[in-house]
């Protein structure tokens, strides 16, 4: 019997699930299941049932039940995954954590917060703001992506250039294991003795355990912020400016790039004030103490000018800054005005390779006849080429996937990797051998076996040709 075929979930299991979470929190209608068959990627897979637990104890009981009956479980947060990691490709139970949104503790003296996995990233920021604190990782999806999902993907965001990614800000996890056991990893203090299991869980895409609560590190809201928009008539100048700024010893909080195609889409959608006639812009933000910030800003302006920037504008008010960011954060969605679907690549390269890789990406788009827009974290070399397409066109998906695979390859050839923050999921599983040798993939499999020896959690993701399987 194939893993997760609906035949595994009979009425008695549905009954048990309803007992655990209450009947109103179990979905089995075909229309409902269809809604949960998707995430933000181009992949889909229909679950057999969707459950919404509200406590760690309920999650534990669901896992124990799934374990007893060998039913795959796919943990899910906001469903914003961009690599197919949260779709039920083999059926089974979709375990949605959206009801687990409690803030267990805001501990300002210790600069920590303990929150449940279903809380939205932005909701946490809003709770922290009155205290003058923030949680640094800020994925563009923060309005609708959950802390648990951020942990599963090791999410980044524009401000990760200066502050690091999720793994640098998560100190503890409450995790439900494949058999229902609940364990605590790490905590408020640093360096819990033993292996860094928090480090392994972060970015494991829901394949090692169900994260139910997260202990995060809080940082002060910086005293001063300066946001600049540098406008370029050629892409090369913009990408060279990125390298030059870093080489000058400046570490801005963000260094984002957007090309013309993306600006046009964004402007139509949000009127953020981007110059649609320019080839590219950089959104550069400085933060920290106000002292000396002006001089650094001037240095940046000078570097941009040297690289043929047409103009460098400074946001004059918080509103102007918010508008620029709203446009940037809404960029993926705005592409809907050009084509109804996109495949977003996530390759990351050493930043000096940006000019060359961007040229190659453009060339790939021309060769396949596919429009490709770029909006990305240039400072960390994390590209997001969006290949835009209409899935109703016959044979287009295959073309798109081939173009995507080529982009992955050029990123690896440039000394980079196939994914910086969106994860392997299903989409890039065939790309894994590009960056990991068979022995390295085997070592990753040992990790999977140590945490989930019967491959119950999010099966078929991350690792190609998993040798462990659900015993029939």
């Amino acid at each position, binding site marked *: 019997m194939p893993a997760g075929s609906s035949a595994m979930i009979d009425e008695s299991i549905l009954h048990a699930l309803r007992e655990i979470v209450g009947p109103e929190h179990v979905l089995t209608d075909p229309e409902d299941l269809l809604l949960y068959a998707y995430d933000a990627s181009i992949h889909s897979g229909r679950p057999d049932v969707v459950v919404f637990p509200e406590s760690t104890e309920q999650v534990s009981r669901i896992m124990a039940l799934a374990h007893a009956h060998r039913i795959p479980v796919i943990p899910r947060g906001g469903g914003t995954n961009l690599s197919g990691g949260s779709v039920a490709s083999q059926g089974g139970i979709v375990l949605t954590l959206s009801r687990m949104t409690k803030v267990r503790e805001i501990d300002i003296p210790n600069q920590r917060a303990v929150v449940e996995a279903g809380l939205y990233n932005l909701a946490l920021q809003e709770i922290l703001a009155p205290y003058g604190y923030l949680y640094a990782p800020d994925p563009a999806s923060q309005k609708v992506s959950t802390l648990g999902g951020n942990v599963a993907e090791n999410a980044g965001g524009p401000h990760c250039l200066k502050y690091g990614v999720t793994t640098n800000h998560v100190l503890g996890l409450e995790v439900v294991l494949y058999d229902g056991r609940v364990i605590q990893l790490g905590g408020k203090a640093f360096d819990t003795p033993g292996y860094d299991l928090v480090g392994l869980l972060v970015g494991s895409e829901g394949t090692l355990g169900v994260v139910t609560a997260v202990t995060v590190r809080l940082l002060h809201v910086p005293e001063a912020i300066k946001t600049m928009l540098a406008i370029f008539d050629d892409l090369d100048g913009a990408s060279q400016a990125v390298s030059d700024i870093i080489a000058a010893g400046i570490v801005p909080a963000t260094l984002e790039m957007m090309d013309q195609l993306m600006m046009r889409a964004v402007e139509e959608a949000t009127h953020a004030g981007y110059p649609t006639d320019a080839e590219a812009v950089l959104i550069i933000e400085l933060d*920290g103490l106000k002292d000396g910030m002006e001089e650094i800003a001037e240095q940046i302006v000078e570097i941009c000018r040297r690289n043929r920037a047409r103009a460098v504008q400074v946001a004059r008010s918080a509103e102007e800054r918010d508008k620029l960011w709203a446009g940037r954060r809404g960029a993926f969605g705005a592409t809907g005005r050009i084509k109804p679907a996109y495949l977003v690549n996530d390759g990351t390269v*050493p930043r000096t390779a940006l000019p060359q890789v961007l040229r190659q990406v453009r060339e790939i788009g021309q060769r396949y006849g596919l429009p490709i827009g770029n909006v990305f*974290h240039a400072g960390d070399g994390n590209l997001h080429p969006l290949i835009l397409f209409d899935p109703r066109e016959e044979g287009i998906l295959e073309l798109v996937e081939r173009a995507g695979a080529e982009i992955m390859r050029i990123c690896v050839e440039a000394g980079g990797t196939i994914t910086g923050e969106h994860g392997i999921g299903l989409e890039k599983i065939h*790309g894994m051998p590009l960056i990991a040798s068979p022995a390295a993939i085997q070592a990753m499999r040992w*990790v999977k076996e140590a945490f989930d020896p019967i491959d119950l959690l999010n099966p078929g993701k991350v690792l190609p040709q998993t040798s462990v399987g659900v015993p029939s």
Partner: protein
Amino acid sequence: MNPEEMLTKLERVLSPQQVITSDLCSACEVDGRRPSIVARPQDAGEVGELLALCSREGWGVIPWGSGTQMGIGNIPRRYDVALDLGALDEIVDYDAPNLTLTAGAGCTLRALQELVEGKRQLLPLDPPAAERATLGGVVAANAFGPSRLRYGAARDIVLGMQVALANGEVIDVGGKTVKNVAGYDLTRAFIGSYGTLGVITRVTCRLFPMPPERRWMLIGFDRAGDAFAFVQQVLDSVLLPTSLDLVQGRVVPNRSDVSLWGVIGLEGTPEVIQRQYRDLSAMAASVQARHVEQLADEEPEGQQIRRLVQDMPAVSPEPLVVRLYVPISAVGSLWSAVQHLEAEGQASLNLLARPGLGVLYLMAQARDAHLSLIASTLQSLAGEMGGHAIIERIPAEHKVHLDVWGTPRSDWPLMQALKARFDPAGILSPGRFIGRL
């Protein structure tokens, strides 16, 4: 197994001049155990072959850098081969424009830092005994120093590595970009694994621009309470000192007239340093601090202060060294609590606090018979305060009944499962890690 027999087998893997059986083995003692052989492979491939041989033969093997962290760990269950990684000292890729450095595990931190300083860059790892410490050793031990407050530890700075596994395979994990989520983050698993999961042969680090200026600030306090009130103000502020250490007054040469010294590292543009100096001085005044002074990093006195706070846990002569971790706001209470040991006449103490990290080092002189009791008391104390304690140094006989890592927690079965898969023959630093893994 007798050394002659081992030698014959080893020489099929390594050339004879890379295998030592003589008295030099005494230099590689761990907790009083001496290996039969010291092996010095020339590259990662040889490390792999050596590990595969050890796995087949069941020989216990302990990787060595320069030995600065070797006191940390339980007594080895078995110790046949000391694996000297000193020959892996190649600079593989110094990519200055991209701020990354890939180097062999045997490179000394000092050599790498001098290299990158030539291009006005910084490899901000400052563990104790950094003069001798090797890159691989620092990463394997997740060793850190004062500047972790600003730059993080190896866990935050290391982007990728090459590792030889117990089965002989050599794998690359991570990469050279800051963002990388391709597969499980094995890099994090090897950092701080103390040579029990694999042998790190090469490391890729993130570098930082060298700050335009660095200075040290010394603040004298009459009472511990004042010092921690000051620290709380600093941590609650928008200021970003690079480091923030507290030591007892008597340890700073020629300046022993206060109860505690705060040693603060500042860096950045002159404007940023002066602003912080001004604000910190005001905070110090608000708690009636007695003495505020600024030292340039280049001055001999600045260097002396830097070395004092960085090296103290390694160079202090006491037989017991414990590193305690608690949530950051509890460091003040922990400082007072441990002083009862001294007040009750059980021990004389030397303390070093890094309050922004929630870390307190305690170095104790006491009657030998009392050391275990003091160590386990400290482990319970840290546990009660929401943290834990690692016994960094204690005479080996005390380790027979004491796990230097503390009591294993609910996550231990997972660690055991990982160890069983990565090292099925149990040859990598056997018995040394938590729960005697």
